[in-house]
């Protein structure tokens, strides 16, 4: 398959397939999770759990005191990576067009050189985090195949995007096609790996904040 054909497939049937698998998996996971149910807490609450729950959804983005000191790379690396990934994903003009064509609305983008710098920083951070998975005792101990799969499918869009941006590797058309395909791979893999955290983290934080909040503890 030539570059243009690959690109066409990636933008058409490939995308249809990936989005379908992604949504299917997402719904399966959410519905199966939701139906597990939860018992009502009969103890007398100090505060309504809703407020603290919502608060924790946001406040958990700030590390607990001392955490930065104990594991700087995990925290800083985590911040930089998530920030870089989201900004390059959401504020690069071609991406906005992609999202607009699906969502029906768009927003202003950032100048490409900023995206370029951020992309490179994000790639470097992701590599640092991988190295840490190999070298740090705790990370190495916890790492399973799932983590490498998740790392790889997250890294590929960044790498191929960067290569396409700079016209590196193979020709641009093929690289763009590979970039879109790598995003499709990411979409397909998300529901079946720890990458689900990108959706469930809000629920997890809410539960944590709500469970503590009804006891009057702000976590």
């Amino acid at each position: 398959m030539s570059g243009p054909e690959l690109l066409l497939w990636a933008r058409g049937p490939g995308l249809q397939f990936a989005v379908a698998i992604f949504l299917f998996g997402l719904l399966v996971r959410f519905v199966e999770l939701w139906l597990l149910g939860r018992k009502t807490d009969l103890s007398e609450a100090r505060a309504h759990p809703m407020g603290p729950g919502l608060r924790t959804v946001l406040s958990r983005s700030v590390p607990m005191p001392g955490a930065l000191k104990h594991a700087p790379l995990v925290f800083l690396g985590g911040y930089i990576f998530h920030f870089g990934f989201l900004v390059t994903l959401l504020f690069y003009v071609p991406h906005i067009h992609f999202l607009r064509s699906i969502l029906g609305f768009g927003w202003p983008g950032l100048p490409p050189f900023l995206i370029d710098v951020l992309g490179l920083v994000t790639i470097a951070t992701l590599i640092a985090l991988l190295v840490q998975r190999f070298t740090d005792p705790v990370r190495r101990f916890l790492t399973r195949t799932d983590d490498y799969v998740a790392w790889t499918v997250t890294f590929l869009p960044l790498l191929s995007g960067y290569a396409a941006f700079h016209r590196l590797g193979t020709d641009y058309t093929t690289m763009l096609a590979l970039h879109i395909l790598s995003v499709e791979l990411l979409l397909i893999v998300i529901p079946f790996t720890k990458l689900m955290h990108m959706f469930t983290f809000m629920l997890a934080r809410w539960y944590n904040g709500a469970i503590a909040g009804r006891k009057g503890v702000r976590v």
Partner: protein
Amino acid sequence: MSTPAERATNAFLEQIDRPIATFFESCVHCGMCAHACLFYTETGDPQYTPIHKLEPMRRVWEREYTLFGKVKKWLGLSKPVSEAELKAWEPLVYDSCSMCGRCSLICPVGNDIVYMVRKMREGFVAAGFAPDGLKEAAIRSLRIGSPMGVTLQALTAQIGHAEKETGLTIPLDQEGADYLFLMSSNEIMQFPEILGAVAKIFAKAGVSWTLCSTAFEATNSGLQIGSSDIAAELVQRIVAGAEKLKVKTVISPECGHAYTALRWEGPNLIKRPYPFKVLHILEVLDDLRAAGKLQIEGMEETTLTFHDPCQLVRRGGVVEPPRNLLRMVASNFVEMEDPGIHNWCCGGGGGVSSNERADPLRLKVFSRKKHQLDKLGVSTVVTACSNCRNMLEEGLEHNHMQVNVVSLTEMLAEHLKA
């Protein structure tokens, strides 16, 4: 029910709920929880990473409650939880977790890890994989009424001592009293002065209170070993006593897990709300202070700090009362590093103190507390949990440190205006 592994799996299946599934689904193996855990920070051993302690239950969740786990099971790609695995994990679940809940605070995706540890112990105890010390404590609680085997006779003897010392009458089984005061067997056996202290304070404040002959033990071995069956039976005894005496409020004493058991788990264990309130003794004292009914004279002038019992602050929400009370009675109160809900555990919570096998590890990880106290250089540490008190004393002695451990209630009683 047949094999231990099947019993454990069945219990996990009973326990896993939507929050647990959400937590497992959200974990990214970042390992941050290790850095919040005393047992990791003080040993550097990665097996003590909190989320790792939950692996058997996570596997049951994936295998039994998710589509993809089911597919893997069907393809023969996953194995059920084995007896060997339970045996291997038992020390991780019981010896190296004091259920302090610090990990639940650090987790960036918001997993309430200690919530899961509590539920996971249900499976281990169902399978019989629990430390002997905890089993024995639970058996004594069920059969004798107290984990340390304290009987009513022992209590009445202490009542006698306290009455003689204070010259006050200590009410027992007084129907219609406002408050029912509970004690931990640890207090009855090792720190009986607390009873006199409470009597003095309540007498001064004009509080109507009583002890109960059928419900004096506040501690809950069922919670520590992780069995809701046992915990419910123990809570039910207190509820029955409180309902018999028609009290308005039950007071949980200076004990961490007793408060969690009674205040937060109790209604869920007996599956109905209480007809009375539950307060921690510090909350009662702080209310008296606010109402001006706690008159103090003479301040404690030595530099002192407060050790926050995990179950009171992080797991219980009693953060400000001890500080309000301390400021009232001590002129040189300094906060420890990471105070309040971020405190570090004494190392003996969650049943670790009743588990002899865990003693060396517990004393090793005391290095965190030692470090905190060394940094402050105080000669007195105040706390509000008799188990913490025991653990602090043991740890300090082990490290040859000259620091006094004092109960906050007792300290207040000492400075009560005559």
